[in-house]
């Protein structure tokens, strides 16, 4: 039906978009893996990061990719404070509490942004926005290609942090054994907050990668949450490689199914893949069985 | 009553239970001992239906029950306790036990009454309204036993219910186990506390690295050099010998 060139281009495009999904899912899966919470504020936090990037670019004239270097530390600190001073104390460590607190936070953040920025849509125009990478006959969007590369690098970096540094090991340790962690002198609330902070920093990176070709409004993040959840479950909750592979997979599935089913029905493709995977492998692709 | 025939279980490469067989006579107390990680708990899980074996069969009362779901086995009279205790944390002690009692009565009042009675029997009579999460390890082990008893089992599988008790407490529990047996419940128990094994068991099986390496009367098994090598150690064997001589 379609020429091979279009199909290849669509799949590559899906792969690259999937990388950004993966980056968003990365934070989510990390937070899930350690804090065992489904973070409903993730979408809203992505929106916050996107607004920060927008501010940095539109107001302070920063390059969107350079803006990541500024926004990531800010989001890191913001995430740290959020978990340490709000989510942690308010939820009393209960699953239902966390659910409500993160849902409540997403309402707060979304509406605070609405109050501050109105429901207006913001975009930035950068030199890259319309640039393409020509690969023979294939036209690949430059921001997407950058996004793909940065995602892979970020995932690797995260992997290294988790496996080579003390804090990384502490994060993994706390994920499975809180009491034992306290007994070797790890401060569990600190590690929780660090995990949340890293998750938020990942969002900052994703925001920087998205903004050159996307828009932001107070509700933008919501468009990505559902797909991020799907990826997290697909890859196996708490699994970093799972999030990466899951993201790429969902990107490709989305591209293929929207090419052949249309964009609307194509969304079903994502959910069907998700449902079938769970029914066949209830802990996701890389999830450990409990 | 229970025949375990050449059961095998693998966990991705590791053979946890390797062609192990045992049989439990009706009305007896049978022991299952062996080093840590020998596969004892795994074997229990297969008998109770929580794990599907990769080979072999489980016969109960002469019938092959290998394919039955755990709740069906429970209804046929097989009850187990968990080595790592698994109380219903949100329920109090009495409610915990009542869940077991519901197997034979749909009425809430009756189930709660039976629960109180059983709690009394295992020594939890004073803790009926305590949250199960507030019990000590030993309390929770009793709760495990009580819940299992509430299902009115004919075969009771006990997994290290004596661990964490001090010698005098163990001495107090031994009659309880015997009393359960005397009321017609056949018992298969995993235990590391040899004092109890020697005192209670009619017959002992020794599992090591998934294989059954010895079986017989407790005393004979403890003399078995293979068992001493793999499980008891010379020190413990000495001590046991000394104790037996005393008794």
């Amino acid at each position, binding site marked *: 039906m379609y020429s091979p060139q279009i199909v290849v281009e669509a799949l590559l495009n899906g792969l690259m978009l999937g990388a950004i999904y993966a980056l968003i899912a990365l934070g989510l899966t990390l937070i899930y893996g350690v804090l065992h919470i489904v973070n409903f504020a993730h979408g809203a936090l992505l929106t916050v990061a996107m607004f920060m990037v927008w501010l940095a670019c539109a107001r302070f004239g920063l390059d969107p990719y350079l803006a990541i270097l500024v926004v990531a530390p800010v989001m890191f600190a913001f995430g740290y404070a959020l978990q340490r001073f709000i989510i942690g104390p308010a939820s009393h460590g209960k699953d239902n509490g966390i659910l409500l607190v993160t849902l409540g936070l997403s309402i707060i953040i979304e509406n605070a942004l609405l109050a501050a920025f109105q*429901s207006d849509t913001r975009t930035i125009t950068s030199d890259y926005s*319309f640039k393409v990478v020509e690969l023979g006959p294939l036209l690949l*969007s430059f921001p997407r290609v950058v996004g793909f590369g940065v995602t892979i690098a970020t995932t690797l970096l995260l992997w290294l942090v988790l496996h080579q540094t003390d804090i990384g090991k502490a994060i993994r340790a706390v994920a499975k054994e809180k009491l034992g962690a306290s007994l070797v002198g790890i401060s569990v609330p600190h590690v929780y907050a660090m995990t949340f902070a890293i998750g938020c920093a990942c969002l900052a990176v994703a925001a920087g990668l998205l903004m050159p070709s996307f828009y932001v*409004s107070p509700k933008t993040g919501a468009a*990505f949450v559902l797909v991020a959840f799907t990826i997290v479950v697909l890859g196996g909750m708490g699994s970093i490689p799972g999030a990466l592979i899951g993201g790429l997979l969902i990107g490709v599935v989305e591209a293929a199914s929207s090419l052949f089913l*249309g964009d609307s029905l194509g*969304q079903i493709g994502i959910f069907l893949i998700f449902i079938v995977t769970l029914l066949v492998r209830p802990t996701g692709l890389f999830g450990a069985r409990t | 009553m229970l025949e375990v025939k050449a059961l095998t279980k693998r966990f991705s490469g590791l053979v946890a239970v390797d062609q192990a067989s045992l049989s439990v006579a009706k009305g007896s107390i049978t022991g299952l001992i062996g080093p840590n990680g020998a596969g004892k708990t795994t074997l229990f899980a297969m008998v109770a239906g929580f794990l599907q074996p990769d080979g072999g069969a489980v016969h109960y009362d002469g019938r092959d029950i290998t394919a039955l779901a755990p709740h069906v086995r429970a209804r046929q009279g097989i009850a187990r306790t968990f080595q790592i205790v698994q109380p219903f944390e949100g329920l109090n002690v009495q409610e915990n036990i009542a869940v077991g009692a519901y197997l034979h009565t749909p009425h809430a009042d009756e189930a709660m009454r039976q629960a109180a009675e059983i709690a009394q029997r295992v020594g939890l009579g004073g803790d009926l309204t305590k949250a199960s999460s507030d019990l000590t390890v030993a309390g929770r082990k009793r709760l495990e036993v009580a819940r299992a008893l509430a299902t009115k089992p004919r075969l009771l599988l006990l997994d290290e219910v004596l661990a964490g008790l001090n010698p005098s407490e163990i001495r107090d529990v031994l009659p309880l186990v015997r009393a359960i047996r005397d009321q017609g419940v056949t018992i298969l128990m995993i235990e590391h506390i040899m004092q109890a094994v020697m005192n209670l068991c009619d017959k002992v099986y020794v599992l090591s690295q998934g294989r059954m390496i010895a079986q017989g009367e407790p005393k004979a098994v403890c003399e078995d050099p293979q068992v001493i090598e793999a499980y008891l150690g010379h020190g413990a064997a000495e001590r046991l010998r000394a104790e037996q001589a005393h008794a």
Partner: protein
Amino acid sequence: AEPAPVKVGLLQPISGAFALDGDLARIGAEYAVKEINDAGGIKALGGAKLELVLGDSRSNAEAGAQATEELQSAGVAAVLGGFASGIALTATQTAARYDLPFVVDCAVADTITERGLKNTFRFNPNFSMATDVALKNLVKLNDDAGKPVKTVAIVHEDGLFGSGLAKIMQQKLPSLGFQIVETIAHPTPARDMSNVVLRLRALNPDLIVPSHYFNEFVLMARTLQQQRVRPKGIYAVFGGAASSYRFVNEFPEAAQGVMDCNHWGDPKSPITAKLRETVTAAGKFYAYNTPINYSLMKVFAQAVEKAGSADRAKIIEALAGGEFDSGIMPYGKTKFDAKGQNLSALPLNTQVQGKDIKVIYPADYADAKPVFPING
């Protein structure tokens, strides 16, 4: 003594997804109320002032119904607005229970007036009317340019609005000599338009007919530009962005030449310019909600004058029977039919030309000539 003011409800999405639209509408309505009151209020009621009561539909149907109930409790003489079809459908129904007159602004679903609710009127054109005009003008546009367009691709969002339009287009375009090569639906919000654009690139239609909201249009236009897809024209119907100054400002290149058939105020009226100024001064980008709600308020005031009373039944009677000046909307005389639809309502065709949005059809209101085909 001062006569009792006439309360009029304005139901708009002040918060939620459509909050921006609600805001623009409010500016228009407030402007009209001020004008009317400054000119001495409702003469028939001894100079009674209009008092605007705002109802927030929060961009969803239940809240719309709830806000209508609240407006009813506040004792309004009528409700104006509604904005989105889903909200308008439930809100008019709620108002119907109280025989509360309800004049819909820009919700386009035909069904809104087709249920025969006595209280419900619609100021703006519905789907069918708008598409008829859109198609007529499209044929004219194509004929005038020497029929460069043969193949058409329809891209629409999959909600009530986009799907409804696409359906009508699919029915009618072939009989007008256009071949539809593909109809592509996408969800709102869309995360990505690349796949849509890739399909368009493969199909290479002469004309793209999009109907979706602002964000998706922007995404698509940017991706089209990036992927170097250059159709002979983009002809939107109720396009969320093609009649948006924000789009024109931020993406002048992608916006160039895009045409839209949409609600649009008379560009030649001096009030249009004033409204634009007011909106811009508030730090917002001008769009059609402002002139519509401005004009709608004017129509309402005339109806009250005609009724000579703030009584609901009388206002309904006046609305049903009368002919009204249409403010700055290009509707000639507003006149509602038996079902409550304003028969003279009419969308305009606009095109982005340079840094401005120009009206190209119909000739009566046009302030520029169409540039078509755009790419050679």
